[in-house]
């Protein structure tokens, strides 16, 4: 293990959930310093802006810039919500932080809220994170007792409260506006933007929603300065990132890797390569909603936002899923489709109807009961979903499955034609019903093209 944790060193310190241990390792020093030296909020934002820290939840929006969007000329309370609703398949980095280093997160939240003058902050836990929630509650109690949270903190006159909130286990509540709705007691469904949460969010007040990893990195950036954070990574992707690696590898786990690190080196030295001496087949690099990469693309890229985007995928939340050569990718597609079908919130039309449709089509392929032209139908459905939804969940089902079908077409073709997997040699699902002998269409059905049916509606009568 060559890579040591730097920013998230606290994860490896035993007993770090206790306030005393955390203080021994320099905990809450930055928070004390800010209040004692009267560092202004603008200075804090400037430091974070200079450091180039970007949101680690998936979208990669610059954090300092986000904080500076909060309007200061309002009488409303400003809120900080910490997004700990981590439920993407393959991502488990936030769990490590809240279970092993909760105080660093709390310190980061206090500093972040101070930076945009927010008075109350909440941590939104995924419903299944019971252990992490209990640990965080204990840590919050300790911090309150020590006077780091509450009224008139350390005699500075600054008030701040931190509370926790547990979700009920919905993937969509990780989307920031859905998280706000869920916290308000409504159905966890994304809102339309604008207005953006920074202007009108939680209870129609300015709200910042940040990922756990982003907030946890803030105290270390303040401790060592923005130049220190710039020593890693490229110009646009700075610092380090937590990668949660799982799947068919020798050493799965959570790793902190500097941005711009060689993917090949990381894969071979840290992860120990593919397990059982098998060959690599596919990698989903950033959590299940990002496109899959072939081994060539995967080994050519570097571990930062831009390089992964160049090689046909996205960094996302850093949940790497590795698949060896004995994985049937049709089955992978079915599992992904099932997840997004189950987790679609049901608000907007393309995602509500489309996710279920994609899932049913892939189930048909797995039964060996799909028509030969089913791939055309799937691609049409992908086109119909992609980009037409309120939130990115609709895009999330399209990107991984479409990339699997684009990059490994022979596997899908074999499954559709033969009715069984090319890898495992059998169909995963039993046949649903007996089909007549001639059920399979020999000639692909000619679906109409848009051009054929394009009508200039401006010339037709007004129906209203």
């Amino acid at each position, binding site marked *: 293990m060559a890579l040591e944790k730097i920013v998230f060193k606290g994860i490896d310190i035993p007993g770090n959930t206790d306030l005393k241990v955390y203080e021994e390792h320099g905990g809450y020093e930055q928070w004390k310093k800010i209040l004692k030296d009267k560092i202004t909020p603008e200075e804090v934002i400037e430091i974070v802006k200079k450091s180039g820290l970007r949101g680690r939840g998936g979208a990669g929006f610059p954090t300092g810039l986000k904080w500076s969007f909060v309007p200061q000329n309002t009488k409303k309370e400003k809120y900080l919500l910490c997004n700990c609703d981590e439920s993407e398949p393959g991502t488990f980095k936030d769990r490590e932080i809240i279970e092993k280093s909760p105080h660093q997160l709390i310190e980061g939240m206090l500093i972040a809220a101070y930076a945009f003058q927010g008075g109350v902050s909440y941590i939104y836990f995924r419903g299944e994170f019971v252990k992490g929630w209990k640990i965080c509650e204990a840590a919050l109690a300790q911090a309150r007792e020590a006077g780091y949270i509450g009224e008139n903190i350390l005699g500075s006159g600054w008030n701040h409260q931190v509370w926790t909130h547990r979700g009920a286990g919905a993937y969509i509540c990780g989307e920031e506006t859905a998280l706000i709705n869920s916290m308000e007691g409504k159905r966890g469904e994304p809102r339309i933007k604008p207005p953006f949460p920074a202007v009108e969010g939680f209870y129609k007040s300015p709200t910042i929603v940040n990922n756990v990893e982003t907030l946890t990195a803030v105290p270390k950036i303040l401790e060592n300065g923005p130049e220190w954070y710039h020593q890693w990574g490229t110009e646009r992707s700075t610092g380090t990132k937590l990668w949660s690696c799982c799947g068919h590898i020798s050493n799965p786990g959570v790793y902190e890797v500097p941005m711009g690190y060689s993917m090949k080196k990381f894969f071979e030295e840290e992860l120990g390569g593919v397990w059982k001496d098998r060959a690599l087949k596919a990698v989903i690099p950033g959590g299940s909603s990002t496109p899959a990469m072939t081994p060539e693309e995967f080994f050519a890229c570097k571990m930062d936002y831009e390089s992964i985007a160049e090689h046909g995928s996205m960094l996302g939340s850093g949940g790497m899923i590795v698949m060896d050569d004995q994985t049937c990718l049709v089955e992978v597609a079915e599992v992904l489709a099932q997840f997004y079908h189950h987790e679609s919130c*049901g*608000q907007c*039309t*393309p995602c509500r109807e489309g996710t279920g449709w994609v899932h049913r089509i892939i189930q048909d392929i797995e039964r060996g009961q799909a028509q030969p032209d089913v791939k055309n139908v799937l691609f049409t459905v992908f086109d119909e979903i992609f980009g037409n939804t309120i939130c990115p969940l609709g895009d999330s089902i399209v990107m991984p499955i479409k990339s699997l079908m684009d990059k490994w077409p022979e596997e899908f073709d074999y499954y559709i034609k033969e009715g069984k997997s090319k890898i495992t040699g059998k169909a995963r699902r039993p046949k649903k019903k007996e089909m007549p002998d001639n059920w399979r269409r020999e000639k692909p059905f000619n679906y109409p093209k848009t051009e054929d*049916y394009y009508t200039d509606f401006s010339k037709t009568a007004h129906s209203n």
Partner: protein
Amino acid sequence: MPKVTIDGIEVEVTDGLTILWAARKAGVEIPTYCYYPWFPPQGSCRICLVEVEAMMRGELVKMPKLQIACATPISDGMVIHTNNETVVKARRAVMEMLLLHHPLDCPVCDQAGECDLQDYGYKYGWPVGHNSHERRTYKKTDYGEKIAKEMNRCIHCRRCIRLSEEYLKVHHIGALNRGDHLEIGSYVEAEVPSEWAGNLIDVCPVGCLTDKKMRFSIRAWDLDHVPAYRPDCKHGCKCLLGISKGKIYRVTARFDKYHVMKSLICDECRFEHKNMDDWVIEEDDINTPLKKKIMKVPETDDA
């Protein structure tokens, strides 16, 4: 006053209006389902997607995604395309998704003839369906003596939920479950506890909520629509009578030209009084035969 160009038509509109209203002012039709002027836009049906080019630092920049017309505010110099290939494709996609599970039982549906899904499906739909799977069906639920509910026809626009929560102040109807098995309904099978519950029928754009008293008795296009009021009504409801051959088949609220209710009407007016003697007709030419006045209502000035 910002100036925008919609499909080549230049209009000047008041600041803060949405693209939808600017387009209506320009005379360009944009289809809508979930949008209802009474409520804040929800943006969930996605049928009103349009392509927008906005002025950014003195340059016209095309927005990367299609925008919803019902919620996107206009800005000066915007160029909006409601009719090009991308938009037509997106609309067609939404229409196909909405009709994926729709039972298409229009021959026996009471809404047929004044159904938004029919109108827009005819105009913007996709001539062939790709679906080869079974349609989703819901368990039948009873909404009492007044409202007939057919959940299979629902397009999940949630106008009924928003009306009952924001105007009727009853929290009886809500969204249950999620994803494509989402159901608009109530845990308890009971009548909507409001004396304005009948308005849910008028607010529903499809045949999900229909009038149980007039069910299967007449087709909507056979009715003459006559504005009338009932002197005994304590609310002074402004109603629209659906009359055929001197008999009242149904009573609804009055609509403007975008098929939006002008006011709520009470359940007593809507369901209880089917005798012509109870009503005062506001137009005197009710008795002139053979003159159809479908949806002929006084128009208000809007936009």
